[in-house]
């Protein structure tokens, strides 16, 4: 499956915009990603090992929070998008 890396995190992933991994779940995919690119870990997870609140994960067009979280099964043809949130105001 393919993981799409957002612009701000590419500097920690050899400047790649997409990385292919072989995994059975979203959690496995992220584990492989951070194993190959360890610097990504502190940007995706808190010190307690929880996914940071502003990091959204979308499996194709579905929010992983409403699927099976990191236990969500994945297939070879799936795309996992890492999307930091966009918000603010005056």
């Amino acid at each position: 499956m393919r993981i799409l890396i957002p612009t701000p995190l590419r500097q920690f992933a050899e400047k790649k915009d997409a990385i292919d991994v072989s995994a059975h779940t979203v959690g496995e995919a992220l584990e492989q990603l951070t194993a190959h690119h360890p610097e990504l870990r502190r940007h995706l997870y808190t010190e307690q090992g929880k996914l940071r609140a502003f990091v959204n994960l979308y499996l194709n067009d579905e929010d992983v929070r409403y699927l099976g979280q990191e236990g969500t099964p994945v297939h070879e043809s799936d795309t996992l998008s890492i999307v930091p949130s966009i918000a603010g105001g005056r």
Partner: protein
Amino acid sequence: MLRISNSLYTCLRQHSEETYPHECCGVLLGTSGQGEERMVTEVVPCENTRDDSPHNRYHISPLELVRIQRLGRERGLDIVGFYHSHPDHPARWSQTDLAEAHWIGCSYVITSVRQGHAEQTNSFLLKGTTEEDKSFLDEPLEVSEAVAAISTNAGRVQP
């Protein structure tokens, strides 16, 4: 520096007037040059999903971002920044803007809108290496006819 064509610059400022007195928001697609120079080649207006407080808050649906990111990849473009408006408020970043900004290395463009008319537009570069040391820096915004625009308005990506 953030470079943008006059037509795209006008597009995002018009969006800020259309949504007044609510905040507008959108995504800037483009390319990165040498160092911290980025060029905007498409402006993608988004829906402000903060229905509870749209006059002083904005939020873009992550699904809309996923689709814009996909659109960019298809066109060989990256997300290089975002824009939003400050109705009846200066075009300066707020503490809320900084707390909610997570795209380090991207530009955050803010337009002040007074009584429905766009006034100042400023760009701020989100610098840093982590959430803990991030900060906004004033960034030159070069508006020029010379910047080639692929489209004056990529249109709304349906959520």
